């Protein structure tokens, strides 16, 4: 290795450091805020690593009885919205890919462009009229606006790249189209299923705008609950940051663990709802 190469390496690592540090420092600061007592959070200059960790901030968040309700609300809404989206979206992606019905992608494009709030006005009225507003059903249904296009879009892409030869062979052997889908196409598309599932879960979990309109006191999801904490608890930063970290921790874990799938899915069209 000559001098030039060594300098190049140093330069590369410096630039890597500069590029990654905003993300790292932010999340470290978030963790720091969540682990400090009020005295440390209110001190200037700021304390980065406190002498005493305030684990009680986390205990407080979990101890507040509603937090677990909101957590389970989030689980139910995200779980149902993602499950339903997979149920209808995967076969649809398959059908669209095999029919080469590329024009239908326009609907998905429109869904991608439309601001989430535009869906809310008519659906809000509809849910009110149906008397569903006190339940989680409206949020599950409206989260489909986010999850269904993601799943369809990603599955079209995957089924377009899976080989047709096997399916043709199975059809010639007398399998029905459903059997071909179930036993030939679906197993091959497993990586695509993972991508669609993970992205649908993340974007549904993160969604805020639907909840803020449709959720009542008992039906809040975690992002809405955290938002409401901001307005009531302006000054206790420790528990607030702890709550924020708890809300986003599952998504961050998933991001680091399923990085490949997420990257593949996002570059496939970066479908984001809301």
């Amino acid at each position, binding site marked *: 290795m000559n001098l030039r190469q060594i300098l190049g390496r140093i330069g590369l690592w410096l630039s890597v450091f500069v590029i990654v540090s905003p993300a790292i420092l932010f999340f470290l600061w978030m963790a720091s805020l969540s682990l400090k007592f009020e005295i440390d959070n209110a001190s200037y200059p700021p304390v980065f690593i406190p002498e005493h960790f305030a684990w009680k901030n986390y205990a407080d968040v979990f101890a507040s009885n509603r937090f677990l309700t909101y957590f389970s609300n989030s689980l139910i809404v995200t779980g149902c919205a993602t499950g339903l989206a997979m149920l*209808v979206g995967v076969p649809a992606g398959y059908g669209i890919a*095999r029919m080469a019905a590329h024009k239908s992608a326009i609907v998905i494009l429109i869904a991608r462009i439309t601001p989430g709030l535009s869906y809310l006005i008519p659906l809000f009225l509809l849910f009110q009229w149906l008397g569903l507003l006190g339940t989680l059903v409206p949020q599950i249904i409206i989260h489909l606006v986010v999850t269904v296009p993601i799943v369809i879009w990603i599955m079209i892409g995957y089924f377009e790249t899976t080989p047709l030869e096997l399916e043709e062979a199975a059809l010639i052997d007398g399998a029905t189209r459903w059997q071909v889908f179930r036993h030939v196409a679906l197993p091959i598309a497993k990586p695509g299923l993972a991508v669609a599932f993970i992205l649908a879960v993340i974007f549904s979990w993160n969604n805020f705008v639907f909840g803020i309109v449709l959720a009542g006191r008992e039906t809040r999801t975690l992002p*809405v609950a955290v938002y409401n904490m901001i307005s009531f608890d302006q000054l206790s930063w420790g528990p607030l940051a702890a709550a924020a970290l708890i809300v986003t921790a599952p998504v961050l874990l998933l991001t680091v663990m399923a990085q490949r799938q997420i990257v593949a899915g996002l570059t496939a*069209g970066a479908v984001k709802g809301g």
Partner: protein
Amino acid sequence: MSVVTQAERAAASRAFSSEVGTGSREENASKQESRAGGSGDAAPAREWRPPSYWPFVIPALVVVLAVIIFPWGFTIWMSLQEWKVGSPTVFVGLANYLRLPTDPRFVEAVGHTLSYTALSVVLPLVFGTLAAVVFHQKFAARGFLRGIFIMPMMATPVAIALVWTMMFHPQLGVLNYLLSLIGLPPQLWVFNPTTVIPSLVLVETWQWTPLVMLIVLGGLAAIPTEPYESAQIDGANFWQVFRFITLPLIMPFLFIAGMIRMIDAVKSFDIIFAITQGGPGSASETINVYLYSVAFVYYDLGYGSAIAVVFFLLIVALAALLLYLRKRLLWTSALGGEA
């Protein structure tokens, strides 16, 4: 690994063709050709295609009709009514639309949206491209660091907004402390009408630069190595290589990234709403935030629907403008005589 990058590449080109709407037909045609080439004969492949795949699509079609198409139709219809919660509805024709240009808050919101969007497209494009050039190099723990790098865009926006709010705090926030370290005066950040939009753009840029990076990285992976080899022989420096080889070749990907970024920035809601609610005053009230107030604070649903329709048309118009600019750019570069 190579499988993933290949999929990324294919995916990126697919995203391109569908977002842009041009060239997708050729691409599909060539795809079918290559498929037919693989199986040896085109005719039988065609025979068993339509229309028996409809049962696969119908459940999704029902859902899409219910949660996407129906709301759209209903919104357009509502936008023609005087429709306030708790009072009877009256058909008013285009009155809601005519009210828009005379509504100072709406006009202001359009301005805020445009400046917010312009900044939130340009800055992530610049930083994302630089980051992609770096991530295109080989270094230890690259995959892991890329995972860290994309965390901001996957994290729950409201949770992030909460922490940024604390960081923006004029007295206790860490940002003013950092400024003081490099000798700059403290700022009011989101509490000052003149700095609120740049401050929010800072958050948006921090959050979405990774997406641009990923898309451009896909583009870089698709560049052949020959131009670089000949450039090296010709003794081109790093900047020349970037300016005359890399940049033109990743242009299509930058365009996709810019388009996606534009659509997301125009619609940005979570960050703005959670940090400022459109304030101070209405200094950061974008169309989306104003739409929220009209529809769900004042419950003026007819007027809100009109805003939603105009808002959507604005996004479509901006997308069309980008497409037009791209065509112009292609023309000028062709006329520039690179042959």
